[in-house]
């Protein structure tokens, strides 16, 4: 059956000038047929372990028919849309006036977003849900900016970023519960430990590139997670660490009572204070990440990262030390991951290995790539879209990851370079320099 479909494939790729109804129907019919075979057993039949442990099954032909019909209809709609939109790759000319408006909007969006973020706890003071969501989004913005150093700037594909998040979270959790160290002492320690692990990962992968690097980082992330699960005496294994202390306002706890911050300031205590404090804490950490990244980009090391991303061989030929460049990228990215992890631990009060699966790494990577690989604003917008979108589907618990996967595929097809394509190096020659012909033997240089 694969054959009949395969031979039809070339016809699908070469879209004739004005495909008629017959063509669209034929294509939709083929799609529906493929869907029928694909879903026949997986959806048409449902298996479940019966009361005696023996597997039983029942049929769901109604669902199957609905799915096939949906594919048929969807295929017609997609084909009509494609005709209406025209062939892919057509350059659409935007009127100059609209273009300049867009440029202004683009420049204005970052400050507006920043001011709005600062005002979120003021506007939504009573809405705990929005504040929690804001904290979650900002955590992913911070993770995205951290990973952006590794993937977006240095071009090193890291699929195990969640390992550093985990290292940071466990560093704070274990140091605080075992030694009673405060959050503000542990935060730098968590960053340093995560950076150290970043170097640990960096050394073996110095010689690898591209996909090999991706798979090794993925394996590294899994190793860290498996060790956390199995080293029960230290990490509590699958049960995780609980009773992690809440952060204090530079030593003053946010609790009711005479010692609390509320009493010292002379205002009435409210549990929302802690949420607002956490909000500004993660906002500060995220902005620190952003600021450090922007500053680093202007330093020689940042330029070396961008050179490395563009071309490793050329970069080496120019005398850039690849070892330090890669290791600093890994360490810097990991450090921010560690900060975010420590914040995550103090916010949750409880951590377990379940929070640090490959899905998290994929989510953060998706945020970075969707954000346009290297664009700080793009990453922030992508985090907002992804996490916000995730929340929209919270009601459909079991369909959430399915929708996430579909969205990831569709976004890649629609905009492979991310929402804001931005990969231009920070420095480049502003004018192309013409070299006079007597300097070059063959004419123009």
């Amino acid at each position: 059956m694969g054959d009949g479909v395969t031979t039809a494939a070339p016809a699908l790729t070469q879209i004739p000038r004005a495909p008629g109804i017959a063509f669209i129907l034929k294509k939709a019919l083929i799609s529906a047929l493929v869907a029928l075979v694909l879903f026949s057993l997986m959806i048409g039949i449902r298996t479940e372990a019966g009361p005696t442990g023996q597997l039983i099954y029942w049929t769901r032909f109604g669902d199957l028919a609905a799915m096939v019909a949906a594919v048929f209809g969807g295929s017609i709609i997609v084909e009509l849309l494609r005709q209406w939109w025209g062939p892919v790759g057509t350059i659409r000319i935007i009127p100059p006036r609209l273009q300049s408006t867009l440029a202004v909007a683009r420049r204005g969006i970052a400050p507006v977003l920043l001011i709005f973020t600062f005002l979120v706890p003021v506007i939504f003071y009573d809405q705990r849900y929005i504040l929690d969501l804001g904290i979650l989004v900002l955590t992913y913005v911070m993770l995205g900016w951290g990973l952006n150093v590794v993937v977006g700037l240095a071009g090193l594909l890291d699929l195990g970023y969640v390992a550093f998040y985990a290292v940071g979270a466990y560093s704070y959790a274990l140091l605080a519960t075992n030694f009673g160290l405060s959050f503000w002492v542990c935060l730098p320690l968590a960053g340093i430990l995560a950076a150290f692990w970043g170097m640990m990962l960096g050394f073996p992968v110095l010689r690898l590139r591209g996909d090999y690097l991706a798979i090794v980082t993925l394996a590294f992330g899994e190793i860290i997670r498996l060790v956390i699960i199995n080293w029960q005496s230290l990490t509590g294994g699958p049960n995780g660490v609980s009773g992690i202390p809440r952060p204090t306002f530079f030593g003053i706890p946010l609790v009711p009572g005479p010692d609390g911050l509320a009493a010292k300031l002379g205002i009435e205590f409210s549990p929302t204070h802690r949420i607002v404090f956490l909000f500004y804490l993660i906002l500060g950490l995220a902005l620190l990440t952003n600021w450090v990244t922007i500053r680093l980009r202007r330093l020689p090391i940042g330029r070396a990262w961008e050179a490395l991303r563009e071309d490793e061989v050329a970069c080496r030929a120019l005398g850039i030390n690849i070892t330090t460049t890669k290791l600093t990228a890994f360490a810097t990215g990991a450090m921010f991951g560690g900060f975010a992890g420590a914040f995550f631990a103090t916010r949750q009060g409880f951590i377990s290995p379940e929070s640090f699966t490959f899905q998290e790494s994929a989510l953060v990577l998706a945020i970075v790539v969707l954000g346009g690989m290297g664009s700080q604003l793009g990453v922030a917008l992508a985090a907002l879209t992804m996490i916000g979108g995730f929340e929209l589907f919270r009601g459909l618990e079991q369909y959430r990851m399915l929708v996430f996967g579909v969205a990831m595929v569709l976004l890649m097809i629609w905009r492979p370079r991310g929402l804001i394509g931005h990969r231009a190096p920070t420095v480049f020659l502003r004018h192309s320099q013409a070299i006079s012909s007597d300097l070059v033997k063959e004419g123009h240089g």
Partner: protein
Amino acid sequence: MDYFAQQLINGIVLGSIYGLIAIGYTMVYGIVGMINFAHGDIFMIGGFIALISFLILVSIGLTVVPVILLIVLLVSMAITALYGWTVERIAYRPLRHSFRLAPMLSAIGMSFVLSNYSQVAQGARVKPVPPIITGGYTLLEQNGFVVRLSNVQIIVVVTTIVLLAIFTWLVARTRLGRDMRACEQDQTMAALLGVDVDRTISMTFVIGAALAAVAGMMYLLYYGLVDFYMGFVAGIKAFTAAVLGGIGSLPGAMLGGLAIGLIETLWSAYFSVEYKDVAAFSILIIVLIFLPTGLLGRPEVEKV
């Protein structure tokens, strides 16, 4: 010694399953140059389809085990191959000439889609089946320890060898195999010489998925269960196997699969079961440090 022999047998069986999955990775990587992250989930789908078709065949009253196995094998190969084709058509072909990361992320997305699709369609709980093939041979009996070779193990290894023979013949002797090797070397040139590149790539995914379906069915026979999450770990290990053997090399994939299967089994037998995955991944990292091209891979010369 007998303990070791038993573990060796177990390791080879597990390695055959990994090897079958690894071939799919290595073929796709060789031709398209991307890691097909969804391949592990294709393997999982293959296991599910084998399970469901097995249930149906048993319930309509078929009792001859070889006939059941043959039908289940063919059905799961055919449907899973179509899954492989569809995944390539939807998620990878539009990104063929896009920048390097795009197909990889699309593949990660596809992997989520497939595993959650089967979770939604078939439920999250593990599906056990009673042992389908029973019996076996006692090879050695010494000091009360028995080295056994079960019929399932024989079937897994024999099927793997037969499929490998067919597959090697396919790649080495047929028109399709020649097209595939041509596309692996240079897609543009192959297209200029009249090779239908799109079709060849599609067929690569179809064959890889069919082999993964066989691996899924073997997994079902050997372990007697499937669940929606099994594709992820098996997929990473099979990819490790492909890298270990030298990515792009078909005998390498099989060799790497055997190596990973043996390492995992022996590590669980002599050290600790909990850290068997850590051992497999550590081997991957160590191999890539000292032997970046794998056991049978060709060194790649990079130019500016």
